[in-house]
């Protein structure tokens, strides 16, 4: 766990340094250096976080349904599930932090940290903040599940499904690119992956193992 946190910090620091060094020239090369780079970064991080969290949910549901048994080990699926979840959270943090540097929407630390405190699209912004906290709790409680009890942990973990719904509504309604077809494709792909995996989780019944009883002769 410590190594994962250290790696996340190192990657974050490296990303910020790289952004500082090449971000502006890159944006100019793309023709988008118009003073709204923070907004672009925030939207991109939000969409990528949505995809990563959708992937994490889908892999988690597939893992617990045991549909992949015999094809891919559950331990491997768990590793991917956790990695995607942590990546999604990191991208969500980037999504929020980038907003602080956008001069137009006037988000400050309080308005992004406290649900429904923002003046910009109060309801939808607040939904995004709530969604982030739900994902944060659902992800982080994995490491204390023995202390809080498996039953409570499972209940908390299930809230990530509601959180994903919140992320979907937040993104579709507040996103300024929702009308773009490729963005609609991103939303649909994420929702379809999660819905499909949940359907499998609810309906799949793993085949019973037939016990071989030794016959006494």
């Amino acid at each position, binding site marked *: 766990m410590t190594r994962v946190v250290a790696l996340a910090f190192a990657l974050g620091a490296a990303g910020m340094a790289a952004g500082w060094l090449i971000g502006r020239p890159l944006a100019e090369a793309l*023709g988008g250096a118009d003073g*709204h780079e923070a907004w*672009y970064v925030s939207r991109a991080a939000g969409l990528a976080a949505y995809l990563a969290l959708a992937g994490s949910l889908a892999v988690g549901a597939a893992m617990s349904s045991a549909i992949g048994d015999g094809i891919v080990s559950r*331990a*491997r699926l768990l590793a991917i599930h*956790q*990695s*995607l979840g942590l990546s999604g959270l990191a991208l969500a943090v980037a999504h929020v932090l980038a907003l602080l540097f956008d001069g137009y929407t006037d988000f400050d630390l309080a308005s992004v940290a406290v649900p429904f405190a923002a003046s910009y699209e109060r309801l939808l912004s607040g939904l995004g903040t709530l969604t982030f906290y739900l994902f944060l709790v659902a992800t982080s409680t994995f490491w204390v599940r023995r202390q809080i009890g498996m039953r409570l942990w499972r209940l908390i973990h299930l809230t990530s499904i509601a959180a994903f719904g919140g992320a979907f509504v937040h993104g579709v309604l507040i*996103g300024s690119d929702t009308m773009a077809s490729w963005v609609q494709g991103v939303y649909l792909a994420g929702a379809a992956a999660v819905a499909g995996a949940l359907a499998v989780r609810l309906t799949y019944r793993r085949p019973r193992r037939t016990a071989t009883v030794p016959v006494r002769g």
Partner: protein
Amino acid sequence: MAKKGKNFAADKVIAASLAGAAFGAMVIAIARQGAEAGMTPSAADTVTAAPALPSIVGSGTAPGSTADATQAPAAVPTSTGQQRSVAPTTQTAPVPRARRSRAS
């Protein structure tokens, strides 16, 4: 938890890299889209200047008269961007960016 002695580090790195790659691809796509389709707030905020209207103050024309009716209405903000550009210092709540972008 992963099996003891096997933490699937490569799978974790690949999954995180995919998320990072998705982020990078989206930054490029959004920046390109913003530049090409004029979806930046600055482009949406472009104000078409309303023609200067003759002042009717002190002209002696009664409100509602024929001369009054033929005149064009006073400059009415036609877009949220225009509203923003009229008095940027007095506006407290930002105008939703989404609507401006979609309109453009």
